[in-house]
């Protein structure tokens, strides 16, 4: 009623003036003048530039007046943060705007009567965040760097990645503590010079670097080597150290899967190119055929994993990220979009620390080891066949020249075949059968584990791996896919 109003109104009016002033000072200049700690944004002077956005300014929720909504408070908070971010981190001291007429104090607590306060908040927020966005896009080429991350840390620049891996292979096969940064770095420089990476802008190339993550001394170079992309300035706020570590884990995983792809291609090529020699020894044709079938199985496995990674993990999260970045108005939303996409990638690569994910990761490593094992067996097989064919040559020569004596020479020949070649072959065959069974079992287990993972996208990997349903996966749990 009017009596209450006439008492309360001047009280509220006078109380709101300092709040109004603090808000205006904050959203226009990013300054807090708050000797009595009344403002709902507080500042921590000890925070570094890198953490400015995250930690320097806190929203003190209990101090938000009841007539200011959470959404408004957030916008206010972000506006002031953005100004400080621009000044301190982006080193941009452009005076953005001077509010000609700040909203009067009564408009704060009489919002149902007039939108002056809301309008003021929103317009300053829009102007400030738009400006910050333009600085990030134009001065700091934010989108270019996102794309560069996709090309390098997420292996999009396939020609560079392949060449790099070829160059580094020998080095990475060594034990982790024998792998040296300067060796790898010169290899990386060589790869940049020779592939399409050489056409990148200087700014992007100079940020590429290698990092060696030390996990444990028993690891190989493959496990510790990562590509890194160095950030500075405002982009460091988006690509924090924590995010860098996430990218490194992602890179390491993708790099390993790629390595498997090249291994299976290499095995395929060796087998195909040796088929003529295999045909010269008809006795081994059932064995070599089995090898081809197994090689095909392993190739298909790795390929399916890789295509899953390409689409379900990388391309999907990328297109998501792009659309969110397009819609994002303030830096907070940009950070969220980026964090979201990173987390999505981590989950879909079963790197999120979830228990089932860890099991999957372990199982996949096991499968990869078997593939490497198979590669070694194939090497031995080819070596064995080549040795045999070379050993046959002198006898074949003699046959052609008619100097082949039926008794001694043919006996020796048969002897050699039975005492040298056959036992070697038998050993190779039994090793092969062990790997074959282990591989099939491991894949079945992997498929089963996939089915029980909570993430629906990860479950779709089993669909790709078993598209024509040759693997009979027992349903320990009812799948809800």
């Amino acid at each position, binding site marked *: 009623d009017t009596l209450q109003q006439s008492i309360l109104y001047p009280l509220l009016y006078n109380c709101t003036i300092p709040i109004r002033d603090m808000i205006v000072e904050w959203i226009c200049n990013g300054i807090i003048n708050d000797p009595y700690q009344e403002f709902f944004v507080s500042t921590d002077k000890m925070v570094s530039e890198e953490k400015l956005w995250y930690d320097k300014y806190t929203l003190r929720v209990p101090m938000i007046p009841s007539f200011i909504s959470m959404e408004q408070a957030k916008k206010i908070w972000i506006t002031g943060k953005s100004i400080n971010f621009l000044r301190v981190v982006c080193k941009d001291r452009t005076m953005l705007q001077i509010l000609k007429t700040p909203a009067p104090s009564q408009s704060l607590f009489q919002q149902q009567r007039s939108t002056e306060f809301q309008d003021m908040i929103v317009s300053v927020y829009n102007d400030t965040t738009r400006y910050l966005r333009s600085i990030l896009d134009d001065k700091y080429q934010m989108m270019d760097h996102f794309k560069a991350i996709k090309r390098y840390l997420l*292996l999009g620049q396939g020609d560079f990645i392949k060449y790099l891996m070829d160059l580094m292979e020998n080095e990475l096969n060594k034990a982790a503590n024998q792998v040296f940064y300067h060796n790898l770095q010169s290899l990386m420089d060589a790869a940049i010079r*020779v592939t399409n990476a050489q056409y990148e802008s200087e700014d992007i190339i100079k940020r590429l670097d290698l990092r060696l993550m030390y996990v444990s001394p028993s690891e190989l170079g493959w496990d510790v080597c990562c590509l890194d992309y160095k950030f500075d300035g405002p982009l460091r706020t988006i690509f924090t150290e924590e995010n860098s570590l996430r990218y490194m884990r992602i890179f390491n995983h993708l790099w390993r899967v790629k390595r498997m792809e090249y291994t299976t291609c290499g095995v395929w090529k060796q087998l195909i190119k040796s088929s003529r020699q295999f045909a010269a020894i008809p006795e081994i044709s059932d064995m070599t055929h089995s090898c*081809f079938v197994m090689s095909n199985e392993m190739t*298909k*496995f790795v390929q399916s994993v890789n295509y899953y990674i390409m689409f379900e993990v990388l391309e999907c999260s990328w297109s998501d990220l792009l659309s969110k970045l397009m819609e994002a108005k303030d830096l907070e939303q940009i950070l969220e979009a980026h964090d979201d996409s990173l987390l999505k990638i981590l989950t879909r690569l079963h790197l999120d620390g979830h228990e089932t994910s860890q099991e999957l990761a372990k199982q996949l490593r096991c499968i990869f080891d078997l593939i490497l094992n198979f590669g070694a067996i194939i090497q031995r097989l080819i070596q064995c066949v080549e040795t045999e064919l070379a050993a046959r040559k002198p006898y074949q020569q003699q046959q052609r020249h008619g100097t082949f004596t039926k008794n001694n020479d043919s006996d020796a020949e048969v002897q050699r075949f039975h005492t040298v070649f056959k036992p070697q072959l038998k050993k190779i065959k039994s090793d092969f059968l062990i790997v074959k069974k282990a591989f099939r079992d491991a894949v079945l287990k992997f498929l089963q584990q996939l089915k029980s993972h909570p993430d629906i996208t990860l479950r779709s990997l089993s*669909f790709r791996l078993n598209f024509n349903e040759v693997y009979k996966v027992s349903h320990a749990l009812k799948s809800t896919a």
Partner: protein
Amino acid sequence: MPSEIITLQLGQCGNQIGMEFWKQLCAEHGISPEGKLEPFAKEGSDRKDVFFYQADDQHYIPRSVLLDLEPRVIDGILKSPYKHLYNPENVYISKDGGGAGNNWAQGYHQGDKLTEDIFDIIDREAENGDSLEGFVLCHSIAGGTGSGMGSNILEKLNDRFPKKLIQTYSVFPMTNEVADVVVQPYNSVLTLKRLTENADCTVVLDNTALNRIATERLKKATPTLAELNQLVSTIMSGSTSTLRYPGYMNNDLISLISSLIPTPRLHFLISAYTPLTSDNTESEVRKTTVLDVMRRLLQPKNVMVTTASRDKNITHCYVSILNIIQGEVDPSEVHKSLMRIRERKLAEFIPWGPASIQVALSKKSPYVTTQHRVSGLMLANHTGISSLFDRMCDHYDKLIKREAFVENFRRLPMFKDNLDEFNDSREVVQQLMDEYRAATRKDYINFGNTQTAQGE
């Protein structure tokens, strides 16, 4: 630079499709017919060095060798706007200039005689690159040069470059009873033996299918040769696009083909492309989706090989499928499309090992405008290809039974004493067909045992 590929264009057909291929590549990479980079071609993310190298004056030269036994087609190329594109030292026309008379044996033996000259060029070109990945041979198998000389070159390539991949784009003749070239079946079977034993991967281009597609597409009764070759160049450029635009997958030939080819003999691939013909009526109403593209690629009318099987007891199936999709694609659609295809059983797969449709995304040229938002190429290994070989063998068997036209071959050294070469080749093709048919069954995993039995 790593993973270069040398293209060998052989004979009339080979040079014609080669020419269209290079035209297409120049357009995609913004290279003028003289080999210079066009001023608008500033975007540097494409890889020109797989197929081109740069001369001292910065202009681009195809890593291509043009071979023929008669001058007509190559002369045509050297009079066209692209005459300055090719390295003139890589053009070789036999001094004899008489061609191979559509006779495989003539082509083969002339190839023998010209081996030194030809391999001088090939060796030089191979040293031009840092790391040669392999060779691509373009030819037809029914004439004389592409088939006979092609066979010879294939054998020698395999001997001299045992570690390099050899891929062919082989045009198979139309399979009507009355052929233009009467000894076509002989030429085809003799060449098919070399393709089986010396090539690592053959993309089969069936002239019957090409004609059918071109006719439907252009609504003309008889499409011109240029129009047919355009279709071929679409396939060739589509299947090399991931090599020329780096991406996450398929950056070299080996990763493209290793998952398509399970065993040495089963390396004959079919191809399909969309949009081609009457697919477009729907796209006027709504946007083309990934599912649309993948579905159409599985339709026989878009496949460049006629694989209609006459054998009712066999269900032919896919050993592997790769779809390369270019354009505006929503990546989340891929998984849904795969599920839909499996649900509706739009493709039948082998029962003896894992097989699926793999979908790859490829970037496309910023300089070539296409009418369509999304386009797709399929490369697949389908056991039904054996029915194509079957029809070819039918024609062959009828001829060889009567020893018809064999005199033309007897004149040449390989066939002077006997016709063993014919029988041997026919045997190889038979084994090829048998293996494809065996691959439709679960017991294919034991196929090696039957071989062992045969060997002993």
